[in-house]
């Protein structure tokens, strides 16, 4: 596999991920506006999000119950996952190219990412 073909492959997968997350966010958004479009909004004071929208399991449950905020949040999580997927795909890509050096470099980036994400949880 050449650099160029690898990049096109990664680019296509990334595009798909972005598209799926945008569609999910848009569906949730349409639902939210249909239900609450005429309510008055206020973001001047911070209340922190509902606990169930602050972790993956809770978000999935809320989305499964077709709650608009849950669906949007699920789309956001998918979007956040795209750069991580990009690094993971690069590891595989460099492996297929027999490029040991950059496979290791990408693995290190992936490990640091995993560390900071788990550190959060």
């Amino acid at each position, binding site marked *: 596999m050449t*650099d160029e073909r690898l*990049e*096109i492959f*990664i*680019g*296509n997968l*990334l*595009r798909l991920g*972005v598209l799926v997350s*945008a569609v999910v*966010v*848009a569906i*949730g*958004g349409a639902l*939210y*506006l249909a239900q*609450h*479009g005429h*309510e*008055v*909004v206020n*973001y*001047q*004071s*911070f209340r*922190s*999000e*509902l606990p169930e*929208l*602050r972790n993956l399991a809770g978000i999935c449950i809320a989305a499964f119950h077709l709650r608009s*905020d*849950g669906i*949007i*949040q699920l*789309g*956001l*999580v998918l*979007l*956040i*996952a*795209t*750069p*991580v997927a*990009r*690094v993971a795909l*690069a590891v595989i890509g460099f492996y297929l190219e027999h490029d040991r*050096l*950059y496979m290791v*470099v*990408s693995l*290190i*980036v992936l490990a*640091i*990412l995993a*560390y*900071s*994400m788990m*550190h*959060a*949880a």
Partner: protein
Amino acid sequence: MTALLFTIIVWATGVLAGFLGALTGLGGGVVLVPALALLFHVDIKYAIGASLVCVIATSSGAAAAYVKEGYSNIRIGMLLEIATTLGAILGAFLATHISTHAIAIVFGLVLLHAAYQSLFGKKQDAGALVESDSLAAKLRLASDYPVGEQRQAYGVRNVPAGFSLMLGAGALSGLLGIGSGAVKVIAMDRAMRIPFKVSTTTSNFMIGVTAAASAGVYLGRGYIDPRLSMPVVLGVLAGAFLGSKVLVKAPVRTLRVTFGVIIFLLAIEMIFNGAVGKV
């Protein structure tokens, strides 16, 4: 303001943020955070959460287009991303020990200098350097990118300097909670002598990875609001896609000037925030 009207206005702001963010490699947060905080009086914590989402949307939205155009350099991006993410962890650790006001002001002054260079500096684009230095050659960082119909080969220099600057960029983003796109572009463009379009697009790739690293933290703290983030994401994705299409056609000089103007505004914002103690 009703939810519908608010959504439409924030969406439009997102389009602008994504457009400028993708064009300059800075990520859209530079535009979005002040707009949300100053114009719509959104609490800074929600604004930071939305900004993080915005940066990832800029990065991923633009990257899909760039990668196919063959601008961004994945090897350079990955190698430097090690420095940025390590720097970010270091910065978050240091944040509790040092005064961020002073750092914000110093960073603002550095950006002012960089803005001056971008706007009034001598012509820097007279022919890309084709030769890499020995370390960059060993790391196989040289590549080529499209110029008009052809592909122009370029070399890479000063990897250690670029790597150190990226450590600093990451630490700044950890310390100040801002995207470090500005330092990334400057480090690649100035220190490593990478062509400007390759620098901005590679920065676009990197900022998404850096932002994703901290997104978990902010989601867990409840900073990411779905109702506010929804128009941001949809607007920024559209804007970033548009921005990436324009970048391909735009002359480098125009891009440099746009970059210069935006980091000038960022510099003012940093100095102001540092001076009034908002950082």
